[in-house]
């Protein structure tokens, strides 16, 4: 699945993926500074569970492995623990690059399929923009049922006690089911998001305009 903007990027950078990352990914300009010491990969608590730990992803970027990088599940696995950032001798903001890469892959329509973090992220976002606030009840239930009704029921039953306790402690309200409360100026909030989207589209557009 590739999008038009993705095609345009491929066209524009003609195999110089490092440059593409530098220009378009949040903090991507740092990737070229990696010295391949592997400290990040060694520090990452999740690294062993990934296809490509950070060091490797950065090397893949330099080796022009565009599709593999952008469709990788690896950067979605980052938990933002910042271990790598704290330790990288070159001071790379690795966590941010990870998120930047994930975001960029998604924007290019290359996000991995059935990646739970990606799904949850989308769910969170959709939930949030509706009212300007996160509806925890809906988000929680949505999460339980993301893999189908039967699975969802099973998870909800298992978490029943937790849910009751949260309600007792007033951490969650069943009333939220009825739509929930939002920010006071909801239309202003939506206008703000729209503006942000426009700005972003313009930026990406500028990068894809053939020179």
């Amino acid at each position: 699945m590739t999008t038009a903007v993705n095609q345009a990027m491929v066209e524009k950078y003609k195999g110089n993926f490092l440059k593409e990352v530098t220009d378009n990914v949040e903090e991507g300009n740092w990737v070229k500074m990696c010295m391949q010491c592997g400290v990040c990969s060694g520090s990452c608590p999740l690294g062993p569970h990934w296809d490509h730990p950070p060091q490797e992803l950065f090397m893949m970027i330099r080796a022009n492995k565009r599709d593999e990088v952008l469709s990788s599940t690896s950067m979605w696995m980052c938990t933002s623990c910042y271990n790598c950032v704290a330790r990288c001798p070159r001071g790379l903001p690795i966590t941010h690059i990870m998120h930047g890469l994930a975001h960029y892959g998604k924007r290019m329509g290359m996000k991995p399929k059935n990646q739970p973090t990606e799904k949850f992220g989308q769910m969170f976002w959709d939930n949030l923009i509706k009212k300007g606030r996160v509806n925890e009840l809906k988000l929680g239930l949505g999460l339980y049922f993301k893999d189908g009704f039967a699975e969802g029921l099973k998870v909800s039953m298992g978490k029943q006690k937790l849910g009751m306790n949260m309600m007792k402690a007033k951490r969650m309200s069943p009333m939220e089911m009825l739509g929930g409360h939002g920010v006071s100026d909801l239309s202003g909030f939506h206008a703000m998001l729209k503006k942000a989207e426009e700005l972003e589209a313009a930026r990406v557009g500028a990068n894809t305009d053939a020179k």
Partner: protein
Amino acid sequence: MKIGGYLCTGCGIGDRLDTKSLESVAVREGRIGFCKTHDFLCSQAGVDMIKADMALEGDDQVTKAVIMACSRRAKTESFNFGAVPTARVNLREGVIWIRPEGSEHDETTQEMAADYIRMGCAEVKAMQQADASGEQGKNNHIMVVGGGITGMTAALEASKAGYYASIIEKSDRLGGVMGQLKQRQPEHSPFQNPQDTGVAALIAAVEADDKITVYLSSTIAKTAGAPGRFEVDIASTVGAGTHAEFGAIVQATGFTPYDANNLPEFSYGKSPNVVTQLELEALARAAGDGPIKRADGKVVENVVFVQCAGQRSTKEGHLSYCSGHCCATSIKQAMYFKDTNPDIETTVLFDDIRTPGAGGENFYRSAQDKFVTFRKGKVSTVDVKGNDLQVNFKDLILDEDAHMGADLVVLATGMLPNSGTDIDTMKDKDESGEVKVSVQSILNLNYRQGPDMPQLVNGFTDSHFICFPYETRRTGIYSAGPVRRPMDAAQAQTDAMGAVMKAIQAIENSAIGRAAHPRSGDLSFPSFRKEGCTQCKRCTVECPFGAIDENEKGYPQYNEARCRRCGTCMGACPVQVISFKNYSIETVGAQLKAVDVPDEFQEKPRILVLACENDAYPALDMAAMKRNESSAFIRVIPVRCLGSTNTIWIKDALGSGYDGVVMMGCKKGADYQCHFVKGSEMAHVRMAKIGDTLSTMNLEAERVAVHEVAITDIDRAPKLLDEMVAVINRVGLSPFKF
């Protein structure tokens, strides 16, 4: 003539030992003139007391002294009485600090102290006042061999310090390898861009300096003499030769680039587009400010740098070591391209990037900032594809075979030192497959041991890597730059400064007859009793520093300014005719004979310890500072170097009833730490043969042990002595007691 004994009761010595009885041991058994006690001998009052005795006139004048106090390594300034022979008796570190308190130990501890006092008295009687030989001269002129940046820097530094220098350069111009470069790695913060090599400025400075003489197209036909009085014949390929005299020599003969023809797998020689780093410099110079073109005129758009080409590799014909500069050189060269056109693809394929120093690290970062791509990969082959090249490599991060196209490939090949004939391998050709450049002799030394300096592994000039890096094994001759170890330009220039300072030190020391390190200040020198010499040449061969030649009659000819006073020759001489005024077969022999060896019924063994004064003895002292307990049966005698131990000492000791002998010297072998390079090794060789002696005496071989001890072996050294005590307990006391 009178021998004065001075017993200190400070530092707890007086509390732990019966000093009254020690005084009488010194006078009655040691047979010295008198023994005075002082409760704080190293204080001004104590020292003044001794000096006053030395200032007396006539028969009352104290002309030799025995200081019975702390280790000879402590209070060296206070107890330095110039030329007056002085023995130090170590009652503090050597006795009370290693012996446990308690009345049950008092007897043996007291015996130990008494023995050391007898030993000190015996030693001082055998000592003579050391004076310079009178043969020394002073010559403020330094010969610098090699006119590259190392040599030029050395010459300029010598001149700045007020000395004269002559540069002998074999080619017809100054500048060396650096002179062939377009630019060099930056030397100053922010270390971002290549900078001018500075060679032109150096040459101008050398030429403008009236303390520096330059001999171009010249080589050295002969070097004779010694520090302070080197006699050199300079040969010229364009004119008449010259004869000149120098006080010291700095060899800065640099390196020869590794021959890339050894690397056919990288298509070197098959394609003109595979070049070495030095060849790329020529292309870059030819390009000036314009784009770099390859031989066929094509502007280079895609260049791949292959690091460690034929280096850090165990393959036959390759260099096993890192040349230290190539990573930074490739970084610099990639910038040549990037700085003219940032779109040129520059890839550095590396195994490990090594950019020594903060400057190198910043320079590396700067290249990354300029989008030079670094890929960790091992290049297997370079294929020629029409006019272009394909580099095949294994990506070591992604763990996969990869390849990339290039229109120019630059090989980072290594450096081979120009150190001249290796006198060691002249004898034993090695089968190690090491690469050797066959070079003519450079210094053409007129030394009995050979025309050049001994070399360390891989042909670099030998130096004591840890303690005296510039020193070679030819006193007064120092090596600097890539002939000493692989290095970059900045390091070579620092090296040049270091070497020239050592050369100046050699000039100044030899002028007054003082030894070079590590016995700097020692005025004694070896002499031999001609009537006893059998002309066996062992001393000549074994001297680690080539200090001994042979005269026309075949007798050893000492060049004391070359001598480091290690005593290896003294240890080598089978007929014991070599000695120093203050260190001889007698000074040590008398000490070991002065020990009171109890008869077998007392069950008190005696173990002789000969400990190198540079490492083992300090280690024992430090163990004592930590109050590490030791046996009361050991008797330690410091020696200048284990190489100075003559087997006669061991035989004498065993014959007179000692139960065991422990020798402690520095690490030997290729990564030696011996301050005299070969001394410890020679001692090991000699002692390996002591087994015969032991078996003719019907003694167990374990009674003699030789150990390598480093100055850091503070805990281990005393344990080695405990081990010998255990051995004696097991095999029993010596049958030679009487």
